């Protein structure tokens, strides 16, 4: 795999040349510091831009064109990562070696830029028809957040932790925020988004990258120079004593979330040692300490999961279980974390965790989307590339993990209590 960077005045193209895949994958990434009040409109805009355009005024027209381009896929997604908001226009297309048409590469590469740079605008407003469709869908998405027990418990837990923190904000925005958006205000935001967002393009495939970047630079007319940078990390404050919140839920199981601050954890620790720590504590499946304590030794649950929210300086443990088992589960989770902080980690556990992580690395290296995702954060935040991570994992010792464990500070214990058994 050959990594290369092509710099232009207003954007940069990052390429990975490889013959591993039959597909090519491209992401046009607009990113910036997240503003809570703009998350909803930004997400709305990305949806809107992928739905239709001046040339393809209905969704149907756009999908027909994608079918003509040999079943290409094009969609947009906005995500919030710590203090950053990243809006990706994602595009998958067949490698040109399978297509006889000599104009294919030019046509297929130009398509997403044609869409995002030429929205269906009349009199400085997005077209009403598409606007209504997207609005309805987003409002339904916001409403449906309550349908998923895990998502809902997380949202409530973070809201209770600190409703003003960007960590607690939903990328979808709120119903009230969406209701305020008009076709006119959305167009105003489109201009702001385009003019202010930092922009990179990532592409992986078996392509002549010199030719590819030339085509892209001709198709993409972004001429807005930006001079700012992003600050990716959120400083969520630790508490002296953990917050305990219990709310009544509408689900059969109780959903329990424990949130830990990662206090004064270095960047290197967050992106290397924490991953190994998490593998031993919870992410390593049935072999991990929390899994073993909750499921194997006490049969309290079917599964338990963890999230290293590095950019939010937080770590979460989540489990769905019966009401009567909640106290024991909390006790066991706290005990596992405490023991890790005391350095109760064997060399054997460390060795096993590293092996698991080496395999995971070798697996993700076979996946286009993972490679691009890794390259994205490497280029924006400076996180390690997959190919360098193995060496970094190798260097981690039990002492490093103990040091990581000491930086875990329990912030909250949140329970979304079961509604009781359904008759």
């Amino acid at each position, binding site marked *: 795999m050959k990594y290369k960077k092509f710099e232009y005045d207003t954007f940069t193209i990052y390429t990975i040349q490889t013959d591993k895949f039959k597909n090519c994958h491209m992401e046009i990434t607009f990113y910036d510091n997240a503003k809570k009040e703009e998350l909803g409109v930004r997400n709305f805009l990305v949806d809107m831009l992928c739905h239709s355009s001046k040339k393809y005024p209905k969704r149907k027209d756009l999908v027909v064109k994608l079918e003509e381009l040999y079943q290409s896929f094009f969609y947009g997604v906005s995500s919030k990562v710590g203090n950053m908001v990243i809006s990706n226009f994602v595009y998958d297309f067949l490698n040109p070696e399978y297509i006889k048409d000599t104009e294919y590469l030019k046509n297929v590469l130009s398509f997403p830029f044609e869409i995002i740079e030429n929205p269906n605008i009349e009199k400085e407003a997005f077209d009403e028809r598409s606007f209504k*469709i997207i609005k309805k869908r987003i409002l339904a998405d916001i409403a449906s957040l309550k349908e998923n027990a895990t998502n809902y418990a997380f949202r409530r837990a973070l809201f209770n932790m600190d409703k003003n923190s960007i960590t607690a904000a939903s990328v979808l925005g709120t119903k009230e925020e969406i209701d305020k958006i008009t076709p006119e205000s959305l167009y105003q935001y489109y201009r702001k988004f385009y003019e202010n967002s930092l922009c990179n393009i990532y592409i992986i495939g078996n392509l002549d990258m010199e030719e590819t970047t030339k085509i892209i630079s001709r198709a993409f007319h972004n001429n807005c120079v930006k001079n700012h940078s992003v600050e990716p990390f959120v400083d969520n404050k630790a508490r002296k004593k953990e917050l305990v919140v219990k709310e009544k839920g509408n689900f059969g199981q109780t959903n329990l979330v424990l949130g830990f601050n990662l206090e004064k954890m270095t960047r290197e620790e967050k992106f290397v040692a924490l991953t190994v720590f998490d593998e031993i504590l919870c992410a390593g499946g049935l072999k991990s300490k929390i899994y073993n304590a909750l499921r194997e030794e006490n*049969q309290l649950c079917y599964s338990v999961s963890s999230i290293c929210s590095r950019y939010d300086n937080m770590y979460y443990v989540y489990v769905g279980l019966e009401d009567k088992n909640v106290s024991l589960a909390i006790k066991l989770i706290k005990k596992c974390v405490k023991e890790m902080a005391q350095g109760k980690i064997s060399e054997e556990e460390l060795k096993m965790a590293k092996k698991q992580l080496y395999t995971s690395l*070798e697996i993700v290296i076979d*996946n286009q989307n993972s490679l691009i995702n890794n390259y994205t954060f490497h280029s924006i935040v400076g996180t390690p590339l997959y190919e360098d991570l193995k060496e970094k994992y190798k260097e981690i010792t039990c002492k490093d993990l103990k040091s990581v464990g000491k930086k875990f500070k329990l912030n909250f214990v949140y329970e979304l209590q079961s509604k009781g058994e359904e008759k």
Partner: protein
Amino acid sequence: MKEIEIKGIKEKIYYEKIGKQMPIYIWKNEKVKGVFSALCVRFGSIHQEFKIEGENKYNKVPSGIAHFLEHLNFYEPDGTTATDYYAQYGSEVNAFTTFDYTCYHVYATNAIKENLDHLLDFVLTPFFNKKMVNKERNIIIEELTMDKDIPETKLYFTHYANLFHKYKYNETITGTKEDVEKTTLEDIELVYNTFYHPKNMFLIVTGNVNPYEIVKNVEENIKEKKLPAYKNPKLKKMKEPTYVVNDLQEVEGNVENPKMKISLKLPINNFKNIDPIELRMIFSLIVNNNFGPTSDLKEYLMEQELISYMNASRSFIENFILLTISLETKYPKEAIKAIKEQLKNLEITEESLKRKVNASIANLVLNYDDIMGVNNLIQENILSFNEIVDNEMEHLENITIEKVMQVIKKIDTKNMAITILNPKK
């Protein structure tokens, strides 16, 4: 060993029958590092009544037992689990149970021989006791309580129960809490000893492997095992009526807006003069054209703000074809009316057919891009046709507007089930 050329896309699948009993399919990809191995047992949640060869009486086992057995099979005689074994190589082992089969799979990037050997060893070595049955019972009950909290799962299984009278597709894969509570060690041993035999299994290995070495290893492994004779079970045939159980059922669930499924239940016999592979392709094209993102109906429903989501699919279940439309709507009555109207007036133009066929051909190439995807594709081929379909491109190119219209004419909207999951009052 047989080499099966996948026509038109320069791909090859290796096939061998190990010890004249277990088929193995291998797809080699030297550009990747990983190897994905899946050992599939033709024993799923629908297999609840069966007769062992030489016996007169049918055995009846509790619903959910295939899934229960899948959990137990990870325990090993030395007190460890299969997960412990794979941890030493950093490999990822897991399993899943469907209506029709159980699949044990391993994703490995090193020690391929050891990983594959152990897959065969732990699946083909029975070790069960009461203690582990009781332990897993509690875990499974937590699993099915968790599943109950997922609205889509509730809608899916309620809908299947509205479609099928006799087929066990009308029950959940995990069974109910009561089913799990009444499952005994003896039930587990009975189904294991009946169904877990190489003659009732197939193995698929995809990734960076030498097919000849893989076959040699698997042959040696199976040869060393002292396997009992296959009991050749006969599954009880269920005669499923052509009509649905409930035309319309409304249930309540954890949803903010109503979600629904509308299905046509079509006897496969109505289409017996059409090649079965082409029939599947034609149904996909019809569904996509009439209810997919390029359909006028979807545009209309979205424009009228009658739906916020719509998806359509086709599935082949024993003697029936299901054409299913799933949607989320605040206006169920109006949406149902529009869907019914479209089902009565299914259409496709020559231009649209050509474009969708070309897109499907591009998909054939794209299907061979990742080792898990190819493994799944082979599993689907074996479960649907009991062989690798090597001429999908030819079939796609053979599809004409006349053939599609012939199928459309035979689609009868009489047997339709509608299930609505409403918000709780």
